[in-house]
């Protein structure tokens, strides 16, 4: 059979979202790939220019629907820098807690989707079951399962409910042995190892050259993690290790994400301990009214005119579950941000896909793309 082009998407079980991977195959071997994006381009950056600062948070949840908290955190940090607002201490800890919970939920979701791509059916259900427990926690303090609208420029919307730390610890106690079980189901299976070892190799220097970050980069041995390198929020005050692997293949990415989940649990326990003993305000006072926060307390400064807030540019970067995410918020003194630009990790990871797909079998596409953890919402924005 001669070479032929195969369209994998936009409706294809492999894509986990709305994109199209055009593959040229020779028999079962991949010769050339050409990803086609934009099926989910919703113009979030443009709509943000039409919204109040706090209203943009609504869009952030939908930008990456498996890591809403992380994107909220990214945006509010950028907006606070642009506006010159400092959130209270407790809010920073709650944000860190939320982001780590989100990382846990996102990685479990990734695990579920990834093993399903390999034909392993049961762990998908186990993953969804355990992820729901984390979503229940989110629901108890934000009211939402997926889209939270919880963080605010200048803090968070409301404090954690009574008895939250105990409830959260219960979930963490349940999750820890589950992670071992996940590992046994995958690494204990000979077929799984044979399907994943040596696939989708991308070495560390190639990763840097191509802008690939996150677990893909760390699986190649690099220790780059924004949480360690440029600690934001209160990451400098908690202990955790950066998970790395050496194999730079699908197995390596799997191991990195598994280890990251364990480290997240470690961070979460420390954050819960701190939050239990340090009550305080969670939203900065002296917030301008035009931020558009429905829950913002109306302080003395609430009626201040906007010219009292200087123009500015805010740059924030976080380690999102998928990798390095940046926000660039330009404040020109108006009620709306003048320009919001986001750097999505999956965008860069996907743009390099011809480097880690070509030369493998067509049956290797699902595990390799699964190990990239594609979230199309944040690629297309």
């Amino acid at each position: 059979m001669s070479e032929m082009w195969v369209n994998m998407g936009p409706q294809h079980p492999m894509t986990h979202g709305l994109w199209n991977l055009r593959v040229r195959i020779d028999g079962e071997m991949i010769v050339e790939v050409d990803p086609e994006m934009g099926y989910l381009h919703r113009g979030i950056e443009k709509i943000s220019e039409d919204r109040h600062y706090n209203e943009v948070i609504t869009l952030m949840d939908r930008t990456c629907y498996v890591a809403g908290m992380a994107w909220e955190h990214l945006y509010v940090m950028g907006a606070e820098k642009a506006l010159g607002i400092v959130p209270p201490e407790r809010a920073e800890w709650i944000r860190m807690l939320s982001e780590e919970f989100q990382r846990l939920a996102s990685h479990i979701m990734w695990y579920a989707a990834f093993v399903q791509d390999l034909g392993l059916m049961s762990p998908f259900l186990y993953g969804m079951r355990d992820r729901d427990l984390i979503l229940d926690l989110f629901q108890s303090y934000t009211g939402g399962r997926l889209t939270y609208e919880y963080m605010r420029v200048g803090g968070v919307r409301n404090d954690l409910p009574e008895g939250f730390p105990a409830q959260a610890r219960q979930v963490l106690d349940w999750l820890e042995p589950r992670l071992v079980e996940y590992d046994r189901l995958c690494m204990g299976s000979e077929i799984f190892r044979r399907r994943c070892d040596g696939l989708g190799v991308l070495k560390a220097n190639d990763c840097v050259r191509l802008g690939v970050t996150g677990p893909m980069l760390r699986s190649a041995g690099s220790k780059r993690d924004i949480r360690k390198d440029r600690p934001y929020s209160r990451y400098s005050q908690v202990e955790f290790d950066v998970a790395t692997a050496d194999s730079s293949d699908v197995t390596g990415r799997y191991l990195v994400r598994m280890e990251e989940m364990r480290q997240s649990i470690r961070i979460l326990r420390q954050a819960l301990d701190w939050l239990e003993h340090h009550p305080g305000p969670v939203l900065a006072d002296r917030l301008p009214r035009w931020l558009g926060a429905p829950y913002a307390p109306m302080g003395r400064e609430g009626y201040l005119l906007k010219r009292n807030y200087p123009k500015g540019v805010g740059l924030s970067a976080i380690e999102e579950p998928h990798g390095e995410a940046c926000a660039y918020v330009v404040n020109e003194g108006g009620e709306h941000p003048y320009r919001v630009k986001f750097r999505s990790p999956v965008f860069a990871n996907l743009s390099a896909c011809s480097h880690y797909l070509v030369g493998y079998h067509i049956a290797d596409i699902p595990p390799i793309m699964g190990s990239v953890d594609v979230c199309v919402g944040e690629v297309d924005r």
Partner: protein
Amino acid sequence: MEWNAEGVRAQLAAAGAPGILSVDPFDGAAARVRFSPESASALFPVLRDALGFTHLSTVGGIDWVERYEVFYLLWSDAAKRYLLLSADLDAKTPHIETASTVWPSANWHEREAWELVGIGFDHHPDLRHLLMPDGYSFHPLQRSFKLHEPEDLEVKVRHV
């Protein structure tokens, strides 16, 4: 080595970086470097090789009505610092030399910036639509492009 505006300015001077207009301090990055767009192709290799900014995070454009701005966010693994590069382009035909020859990761970012903001990147290997359908002739992130409530439209579907 100091990674503030002074240090960056000194290192740029030492490496002989061309076309530097100003180096200002910037919160969240080592510095904000403004350069003239004509010297882009000479400046980028210097930043990557002499200063060690091997990773390009993103490329973006801003429409300031009277001019365009293109900014690059770089990261150095050795210094663990970001560096913000920006250049002003003229409003008529904004264009600049591509960075994708120096940092291959710029490829898609530049495609996006061209598509949404309308900044042209010379010698880009593959400057075609990324997010919008082929043949889409607007640049949505320009200030002249206004959003509005959707009119009550009737979509005619031709069944084959």
